[in-house]
């Protein structure tokens, strides 16, 4: 079977994951990293990954005319993905389904390679199980009194939402990355319903029923109305867009944002997000440099605010960095065996390829059973307003922890 993998814009993470297709002997795989220059030829299956901008339409057309089957792989292609948060600032990232109706979606950030293989082989995707049904935590759905932004819990049985951490697991399918296993509430990269963000917003509006909300007197109606001013409710969720629409903004039915853009898609993704969410976001979109990018961002903040980092944490971080070097080597040599071995090692320390376990001050979940977890456990840190700078990465946050400016030079 002739399979060609086309990488459009974005972080290449899903593109590299498709290296694993080479382990399957039935497939004749070819990787195409610049679809614009591709010379059209007939093929059985086209796998498209990466986010799509309006100027890619010609290339998409070309692929559509020459392939029998098209598969969208990864959230960037299927629902816009993390990069589509830039649509808040007026960019136009388009989900593939809006351009081609006859396309099979393999959702996820990172998309699951097992699912991709079964879709390429023409099998139906199985298992519509929700994430909650496989989560070890159990929900009661009681009203919350407050929202917790940073996580530090020993409780492993109560649902994140009941503890005050916003988790989008309700609308998510069960997945391979399983951030929930690493004390990281789900952000819904594998939605099982349409317009998942809007639904989650409604769900949380209800859950936050005990949080104080302001009303005001309406002159004309002579009764109370919902106030426009900020109150405890809006203060407790400073970044609704980044929380509930992280992967699905273009398919959510919301109008395209018209916030002033900084001109750069990568920067626009970060601006407006919360400091405690940054490691996960850099982990998601850093591609094969995600580890160094995430650690740099974390270490910048730690250094400026004197957050203590234990020896054990440093050891693990250095291990991750050397694994990243291996990963880059594996991807540049297109070596699936080495890629597989390296990612397995990364998953052991960082939890998954989205680096859910890596955090400010340490790690969120125990890595090795034989060790004392306290020696590298992360703790709640203080949010300090200011500008942070360390070589290639510069960012500034406001008193609430919202990113105001960011520049990343490396990429």
């Amino acid at each position, binding site marked *: 079977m002739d399979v060609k993998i086309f990488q459009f814009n974005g972080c290449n993470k899903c593109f590299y994951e498709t290296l694993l297709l080479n382990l399957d002997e039935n497939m004749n795989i070819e990787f195409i990293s610049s679809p614009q220059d591709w010379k059209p030829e007939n093929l059985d299956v086209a796998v498209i990954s990466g986010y799509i901008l309006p100027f890619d339409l010609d290339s998409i057309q070309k692929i559509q005319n020459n392939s029998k089957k098209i598969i969208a792989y990864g959230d960037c292609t299927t629902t816009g993905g993390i990069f589509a948060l830039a649509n808040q600032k007026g960019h136009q990232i388009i989900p593939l389904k809006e351009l081609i109706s006859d396309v099979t979606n393999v959702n996820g950030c990172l998309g699951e390679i097992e699912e991709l293989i079964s879709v390429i082989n023409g099998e139906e995707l199985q298992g519509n199980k929700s994430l909650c049904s496989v989560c070890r935590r159990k929900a009661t759905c009681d009203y919350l009194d407050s929202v917790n932004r940073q996580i530090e819990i020993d409780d492993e049985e109560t649902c994140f939402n009941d503890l005050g951490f916003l988790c989008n697991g309700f609308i998510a399918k069960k997945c391979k990355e399983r951030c929930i296993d690493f004390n990281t509430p789900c952000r819904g990269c594998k939605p099982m319903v349409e317009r998942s963000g809007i639904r989650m917003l409604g769900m949380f509006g209800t859950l936050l029923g005990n949080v104080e909300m302001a009303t005001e007197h309406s002159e004309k*109606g002579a009764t109370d109305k*919902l106030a*426009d001013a900020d109150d405890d409710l809006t203060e407790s969720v400073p970044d609704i867009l980044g929380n509930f629409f992280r992967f699905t903004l273009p398919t959510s039915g919301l109008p395209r*944002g018209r916030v002033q853009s900084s001109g750069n898609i990568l920067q626009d993704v970060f601006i407006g997000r919360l400091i405690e969410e940054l490691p996960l976001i850099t982990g998601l979109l850093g591609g094969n440099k995600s580890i160094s990018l995430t650690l740099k961002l974390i270490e910048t903040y730690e250094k400026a605010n004197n957050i203590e980092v234990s020896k054990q944490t440093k050891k693990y971080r250095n291990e991750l960095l050397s694994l990243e070097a291996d990963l880059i080597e594996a991807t540049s040599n297109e070596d699936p065996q080495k890629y597989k071995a390296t990612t397995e090692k990364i998953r052991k320390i960082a939890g998954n390829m989205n680096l859910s376990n890596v955090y400010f001050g340490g790690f969120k979940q125990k890595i090795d059973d034989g060790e004392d977890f306290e020696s590298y456990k992360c703790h709640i840190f203080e949010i300090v307003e200011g500008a942070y700078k360390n070589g290639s990465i510069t960012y500034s946050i406001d008193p609430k922890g919202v990113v105001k400016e960011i520049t990343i030079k490396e990429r």
Partner: protein
Amino acid sequence: MSECETIDEEIKENIQNIVVFMCNECGQGSANTAGIARMAYEPAVRIVRVQCTGQVGPIQIMDALNNGADAVACVGCCIGACHFFNGNLLSMHRIKLMKKLFKELGYSDQFINQYTSRAAEGETAVGDFEDIVERLAKAIKEEGTIKDGC
């Protein structure tokens, strides 16, 4: 008439569709009272009767906006007077979050609102409608309509 007032009038004339979800108890009750008293109300308002404003969530609101509504509002019972339990409060919580979401997207937060009314007083509903149109007209004048971004 000054130029400024002409623009205001034009904007108000262009507001054709405001979907207002009214609860079956106080909201619709007060609209009925207004009808019995033959009070005039804004022609742009389209009333959708629901059992309780607690039934109205972001999905219904976005459906209305995506299908051509200029704005959406809920009118429920007064605070503490929900005929069920706390449906009006829950709806207010959700609508407040939606207002914040619209601000985050760079739009005015006046496209969505929630009011309360009293069944015995028709003027509360009529006053709420007037308030909706006035706030919407002001928001459109300052920041444009929601359709500009769709």
